[in-house]
């Protein structure tokens, strides 16, 4: 062990004493009876130190493990019962200390220590002292980090003054008060000493007291005698010593900005007159002071807010008018702009409008319009009026704004032009008015044309011929109309020019509603008369007529071939006159489909090419066909009417109800052509010579059927029908027809003996239409028997027995053969009149003849 004196009062460097002699200690015996000891107990070290930990165990076991903050550490075993662990560069973890403990694994024995690691004590920074009253010094510093632990209190601070030899223990960790002795000590040499259990740090300053004066904040800063443009500010300061003066700085702020700054030297009371103030304006005055003898620091600021008084408005309101006729009376709308704050000088309460009739000077009319109204309307007559407008606040009126209006609106037909819009606005220029213009006014509406006009105007001097009109309300694609007026010396406005323009032209968003007319086979006419070019988002320069031609068709030379965005080819015709709103599309192909669209274009682009309209040209011959078809239909109608009227005659002529061969026209036909030997036989001339009794047994038919030929052996013969009305070749259904059959007088025709009318279906095989029970086959069988009979009787001797009936085939009785056609034909038929040899008819009944008769009657019944 050795020692050294460590005291701030003793000048360094100190020196170490000699080492003491060694002392021996028996650790084992000194320890108590606990099984495990950990050292050093509750050690306090600085951050960054190296610490050696060791444990001494009485239980001589190897399964002892040690932990630093719960993390196992490994050390060096010095003995069977002693191990050491070196911790390097330890750091601060917590105020409650770093835990190190050792334990016997699964032995329930535990020992530990808490290692207190302190932060390194820092030297105080920014150490300085100052006084507010030359009586008390306040020293301040930045203490740095706190080194307090549960084992060590926070560092302490002590203030030494070397001239007086006094010291004080500071109660606060970053400032300390020092009472200045009454012996008027001016120079001070302070040493600030910071110390904790482990270290001491000090810092010193030397200064003159009067050079460290920091005055206290002034107080009672108040405005006094506040007028419209002037105000006096007063304030007080705390005195410093005896007869000391302070330099005070007074600042005036308006809207947060310093607009005036003044320095005033005072002892206790301060006063300053602020001038050049604006009426009715809020100001902030603020004051700070410093020690005049030696400037060290400004005091803290004190601020005071005040308002100046109102004054009469300094400028006449900007007035404009709009003339119009309401119910035939000239009406003037007066507009004025609210005065700016600078010119209003207070709150505008009302506006006075004085209307003076110039033609009758004695007549005045005064209107008082409360603020914040900014317009009024006056109904006038044809006289001229001078209108004075003044704005009033609580102090008085503004200068008058004078305008002269006349009931006659004057010439509205003036030059119209265009004006270009830029990002800045519209650059409007006009021709200077020769003569006595005292100024110009540009007037416009802020909104689009279809909205109510918010009238805007701009006054310009007499030498101005151009201006830029700016407005936040201007929008691209909206047409703005500007009217330029010249103001005469009589203060009357005359319209000079009209200009229209767009801030930024846009392509049309809509296409006109196109009406198509005069459609022919080769042309049609398009018109869009209702399209207004005024209300478009740009100046309409013309129109494009797009026509989609037929596939493969070339564009007409007047058209230009173009490719649409969807890659379809189109013919385009450009109309460069925006007022031309009709177009004839010509040279088209008849009976062809065309698609067209009319789109306007501006300098920026054209309208949307979205909805093409389809049109089909007419057939070239359609009108000719109409000229032919109509008379034909008329003629047919005439014929049909005639036919209807003459139907009775036609019936008599062609198909009388009672067939009379003499009346038949066929007869004449036959007579005229062939067989001059043919004669007509009258039934009345025939004398019946035998009565045939018909026995109709049920089985006779069956018997007959059993003897006849099989259907396959029956030769099918087509019945001879004469259709008087024309029929379709493939006619298959039943229809009105006239069946005219007569085999009576033509032996050749007697081969066909049937009255049964079968509608013939040409597609069907013929043999299927001739079943066994069909009349044809039946007659065939009959004919065969009949021919056999003729073979037995000489032909010259043969007589005829007539069985003639006019009957419908549908009227057969129950015993008739099942010859039901698919649908009964509504026919009037002239039935077959079959010639029967008399010999056969009168022959004695035999088995064969009986059979023949039966067969015949069966057929006769069928034809009845």
């Amino acid at each position: 062990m050795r020692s050294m004196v460590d005291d701030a009062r003793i000048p360094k460097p100190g020196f170490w004493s000699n080492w003491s002699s060694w002392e021996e200690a028996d650790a084992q015996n000194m320890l108590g009876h606990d099984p495990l000891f950990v050292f050093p107990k509750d050690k306090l070290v600085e951050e960054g130190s190296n610490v050696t930990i060791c444990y001494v165990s009485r239980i001589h076991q190897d399964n002892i493990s040690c932990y630093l903050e719960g993390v196992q550490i490994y050390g060096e075993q010095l003995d069977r019962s002693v191990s050491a662990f070196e911790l390097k560069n330890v750091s601060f973890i917590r105020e409650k200390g770093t835990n190190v403990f050792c334990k016997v694994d699964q032995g329930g024995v535990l020992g530990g220590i808490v290692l207190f690691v302190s932060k390194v004590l820092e030297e105080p920074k920014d150490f300085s002292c100052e006084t507010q009253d030359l009586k008390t010094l306040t020293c301040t510093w930045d203490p740095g980090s706190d080194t307090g632990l549960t084992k060590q209190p926070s560092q302490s601070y002590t203030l030494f003054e070397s001239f007086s030899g006094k010291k004080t223990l500071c109660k606060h960790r970053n400032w300390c008060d020092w009472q200045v002795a009454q012996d008027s000590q001016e120079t001070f040499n302070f040493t600030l000493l910071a110390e904790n259990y482990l270290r001491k740090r000090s810092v010193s300053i030397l200064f003159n007291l009067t050079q460290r004066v920091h005055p206290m904040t002034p107080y009672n800063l108040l405005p006094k005698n506040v007028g419209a443009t002037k105000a006096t500010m007063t304030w007080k300061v705390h005195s410093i010593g005896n007869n000391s003066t302070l330099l005070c700085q007074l600042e005036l702020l308006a809207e947060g900005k310093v607009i005036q700054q003044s320095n005033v030297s005072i002892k206790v009371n301060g006063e300053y007159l602020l001038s050049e103030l604006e009426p009715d304006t809020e100001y902030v005055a603020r004051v700070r002071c410093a020690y005049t003898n030696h400037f060290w620091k400004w005091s803290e600021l004190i601020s005071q807010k005040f308002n100046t008084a109102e004054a009469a408005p300094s400028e006449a309101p900007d007035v404009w008018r709009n003339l119009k006729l309401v119910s035939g009376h000239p009406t003037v709308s007066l507009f004025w702009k609210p005065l700016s704050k600078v010119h209003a000088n207070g709150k505008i309460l009302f506006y006075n409008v004085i209307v003076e009739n110039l033609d009758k000077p004695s007549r005045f009319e005064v209107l008082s319009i409360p603020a914040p109204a900014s317009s009024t309307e006056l109904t006038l007559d044809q006289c001229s009026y001078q209108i004075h407008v003044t704005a009033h606040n609580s102090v008085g009126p503004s200068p008058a704004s004078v305008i002269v209006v006349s009931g006659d609106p004057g010439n509205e037909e003036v030059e119209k032009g265009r004006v270009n819009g830029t990002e800045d606005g519209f650059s409007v220029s006009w021709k200077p008015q020769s003569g006595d213009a005292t100024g110009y006014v540009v007037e416009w509406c802020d909104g689009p044309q279809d909205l109510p006009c918010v009238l805007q105007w701009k006054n310009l001097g007499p030498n101005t011929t151009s201006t830029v009109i700016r407005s936040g309300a201007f929008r691209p694609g909206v047409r703005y109309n500007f009217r330029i007026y010249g103001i005469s010396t009589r203060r009357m406005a005359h319209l000079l020019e009209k200009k229209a323009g767009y801030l930024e032209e846009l392509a049309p968003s809509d296409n006109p509603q196109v009406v198509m007319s005069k459609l022919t086979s080769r042309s049609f006419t398009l018109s869009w008369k209702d399209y207004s070019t005024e209300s478009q988002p740009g100046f309409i320069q013309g129109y494009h007529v797009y026509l989609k031609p037929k596939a493969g068709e070339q564009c007409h030379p007047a058209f230009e071939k173009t490719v649409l965005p969807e890659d379809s080819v189109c013919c385009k015709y450009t109309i460069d006159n925006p007022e031309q709103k009709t177009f004839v599309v010509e040279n088209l192909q008849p009976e062809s489909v065309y698609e067209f669209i009319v789109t306007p274009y501006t300098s920026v682009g054209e309208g949307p090419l979205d909805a093409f309209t389809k049109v089909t040209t007419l057939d070239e011959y359609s009108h000719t066909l109409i000229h032919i078809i109509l008379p034909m239909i008329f003629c047919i109608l005439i014929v049909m009417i005639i036919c209807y009227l003459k139907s009775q005659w036609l019936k008599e002529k062609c198909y009388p109800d009672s067939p009379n061969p003499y009346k038949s026209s066929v007869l004449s036909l036959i007579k005229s052509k062939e067989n001059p030997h043919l004669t007509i036989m009258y039934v009345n001339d025939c004398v019946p010579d035998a009565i045939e009794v018909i026995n109709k047994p049920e089985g006779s038919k069956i018997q007959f059927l059993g003897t006849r030929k099989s259907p396959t052996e029956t030769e099918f013969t087509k019945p001879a029908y004469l259709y008087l009305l024309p029929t379709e070749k493939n006619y298959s259904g039943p229809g009105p027809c006239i069946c005219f059959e007569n085999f009576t007088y033509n032996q050749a025709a007697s081969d066909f003996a049937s009255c049964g009318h079968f509608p013939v279906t040409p597609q069907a095989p013929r043999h299927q239409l001739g079943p066994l029970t069909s009349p044809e086959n039946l007659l065939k069988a009959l004919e065969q028997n009949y021919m056999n009979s003729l073979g037995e009787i000489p032909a010259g001797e043969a007589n005829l027995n007539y069985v003639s009936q006019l009957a419908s085939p549908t009227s057969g009785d129950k015993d008739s053969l099942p010859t039901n056609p698919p649908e009964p034909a509504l026919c009037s038929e002239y039935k077959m009149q079959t010639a029967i040899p008399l010999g056969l008819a009168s022959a004695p009944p035999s088995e064969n003849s009986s059979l023949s008769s039966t067969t015949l009657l069966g057929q006769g019944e069928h034809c009845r």
Partner: protein
Amino acid sequence: MLPAAGEPAAGDSWGMLACLCTVLWHLPAVPALNRTGDPGPGPSIQKTYDLTRYLEHQLRSLAGTYLNYLGPPFNEPDFNPPRLGAETLPRATVDLEVWRSLNDRLRLTQNYEAYSHLLCYLRGLNRQAATAELRRSLAHFCTSLQGLLGSIAGVMAALGYPLPQPLPGTEPTWTPGPAHSDFLQKMDDFWLLKELQTWLWRSAKDFNRLKKKMQPPAAAVTLHLEAHGF
């Protein structure tokens, strides 16, 4: 007491009359029928039980904060050190048979004494705490624990038990002497919180048991009366 009222009589009318008289004699002793306005110790036991559960919840949060303040290994969930140097702390653990053999008065007395000691140690803990936040939490818990002590005293008074008088010179004191190392001090703090937790758990059980025991058996009286044919 009540089963005696329900014992069957000898069968004759005199026996039944004697039984009825016995019942009527004992009726004023039945707490549920004694409607003189004193609610008995039931509500105060219930309040004490509720306060115990609230303190259990409060301690859970406080112990987490304080053990983190001590640092590892004390804030490790499986840290279970031998009880070194914390011998003066009242032990909450007791053999089950021994615990069952305790009567209400003994249980309440043990609770009261334990919390008196623990509260004293806790206040010492509060004085040592370095952070303001921790001091606030500890102060709040101490106030609650003081309330619990008052509640236990109220229950004991309601049941007619006298409060235990501390023997002179045996009052627990917070003496972090120089022989007591900081590590052992931290162990004491750990065990203090652990014993508090166990005591609160044990108290909740005690007061729940007492609460059930003190419930008025009015329904049982009615049942017995009906059984005798009234």
